[in-house]
């Protein structure tokens, strides 16, 4: 059975049908990419699956359980993590604290215990800090472990988002244009990082414009155009699909 099953998913904003009747499924352990021109509905699709938007109609199943319309924190509990196309970093916190927030659900959030600084809580927090530092090394941010988020360059913040998502120990991670705005060297580094994430056993769903990266990483690809599913398959299949060539790849290939 597929890890994620999306069927006939739609959302309308007033008269705009941003996503229409989209159906696909993602098996556990693969890298699945969603591509399409700007405005095709890729980020909206992410927002629907991660609970930021509620679908107008359609179904989403995670491991056989319906998750359509559930709130983001309920999805976080079920192991769904994501990053954002437009950075959503907490600039009022340090870099490592941003990563630690990712582990929110795994911690004792009791207000009273926190105010009294109980040793059990501080010990756990110290462990978490080490874990977060480890994650920052994993994504290649070792030199920013002590940094403030608002002092970091754009490329590093992109990876900080990935580290925060990984701190959730997710089963499924949605990466929304992790290489957007990066230079070619940084893009290759992110390419390697996504591979490393996938190899650690996390299912990756990727939205990305860099076709080389998409073709290189993806097991399967979904092509969206004007909110509708245009094609789906392996990189080879998609590349040969005449609709895709006409609508999208034609311009690039």
């Amino acid at each position: 059975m597929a890890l994620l099953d999306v069927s006939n998913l739609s959302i309308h904003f007033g008269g705009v049908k941003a996503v229409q009747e989209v159906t696909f499924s993602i098996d556990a352990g693969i890298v699945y990419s969603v591509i399409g021109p700007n405005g095709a509905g890729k980020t909206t699709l992410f927002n629907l699956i991660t609970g930021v938007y509620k679908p107008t109609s359609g179904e989403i199943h995670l491991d056989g359980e319906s998750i359509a319309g559930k709130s983001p924190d309920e999805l976080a509990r079920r192991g769904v993590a994501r990053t954002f196309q437009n950075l959503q970093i907490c600039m009022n916190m340090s870099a490592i604290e941003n990563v630690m927030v990712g582990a929110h659900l795994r911690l004792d959030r009791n207000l009273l215990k926190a105010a009294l600084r109980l040793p059990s809580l501080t010990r756990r927090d110290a462990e978490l800090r080490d874990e977060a530092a480890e994650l920052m090394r994993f994504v290649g941010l070792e030199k920013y472990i002590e940094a403030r988020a608002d002092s970091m360059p754009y490329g590093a913040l992109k990876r900080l988002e990935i580290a925060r998502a990984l701190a959730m120990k997710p089963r499924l991670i949605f990466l929304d244009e992790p290489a957007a705005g990066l230079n070619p060297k940084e893009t290759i580094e992110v390419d390697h990082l996504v591979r490393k994430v996938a190899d650690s056993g996390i299912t990756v769903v990727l939205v990305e414009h860099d076709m080389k990266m998409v073709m290189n990483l993806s097991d399967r690809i979904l092509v969206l155009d004007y909110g509708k599913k245009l094609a789906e398959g392996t990189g080879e299949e998609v590349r040969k699909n005449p609709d895709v060539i006409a609508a999208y790849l034609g311009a690039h290939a």
Partner: protein
Amino acid sequence: MQKRAYFGLYVVIAVLIVLPFVLPNSFYLDVAIRMAINAVIVLGLNLLIGFAGQISLGHAGFLGIGAYASAVLPTHFGWHPLLAMIAGAVVTGVLAALVARPIFKLKGNYLAMATLGLGIILSIAVRNEAQWTGGPDGMPVPAFGLFGFELSSDKQWYWVIAVLLSVSVWASLNLIDSPFGRALRALHGSEVASRVVGVDVVRYKVAIFVMSAVFASLMGSITAHYVGFVTPNLADFFHSIELVTMVVIGGMASVYGSLIGAVLLTALPQALATFEGWETVAFGGILMVCMIFLPKGLVPTLASKLGKGE
């Protein structure tokens, strides 16, 4: 970083210990006590405004509930002051929670409206229910005692409130650097990001709102017992604004900024009293100048200036 934050706590405690021995007379001791009381309220309010990024323009209303619970319940119903204080805090907590839940689904300006409205309703009620509250003239408050020991002299009050303030600073520092505090700051930094990592945003906002309201109520009770008299001014809109101003001038999201803000704005009216008639103009002008030139507040602005100098 964290060690340095707690170092400030020792400074605060040291200052609090030395202060009564260097203050020239009881007038200054009284001002110091009022500063400390305000500081505790502002610490709670800063958790809400500075750290969690939510506005309240009605906190004086909660202060008023505590103060009038401590005045009315013992006077008219013979309640023990401690019980009255707790009752005030419970009522405040319930009311804050009731109002907060729907309101915190909204953003900034609507929240300002709702808290402002609640505060104004409370202060009007206090003014109108003269048979219970003495109306606009206010009413006396019985002394506070526990186990046969009565708090009466300003010196005794000073030490009680000094301990309260130290504990509050310590607890605030703890809270900020905890999973709870990180979630609060995260929802200020990016609400959508914190939702996606699993923070139940509305719950956190409600929790901190209720907590800061209860803090205000308890300190309202303490103010009432310390001063020995309550007036509706304690609960009115202008006092809410004063409290928010303390947060903002001292520094949003800064524990020590809260203290500085409380000290400065408690002292300000005393200092301005010499301006005879021009107090309001001077107070307003100072607010504007501070906010225009130090929009982040004193402590964060100075801290970043010093940070660059190093």
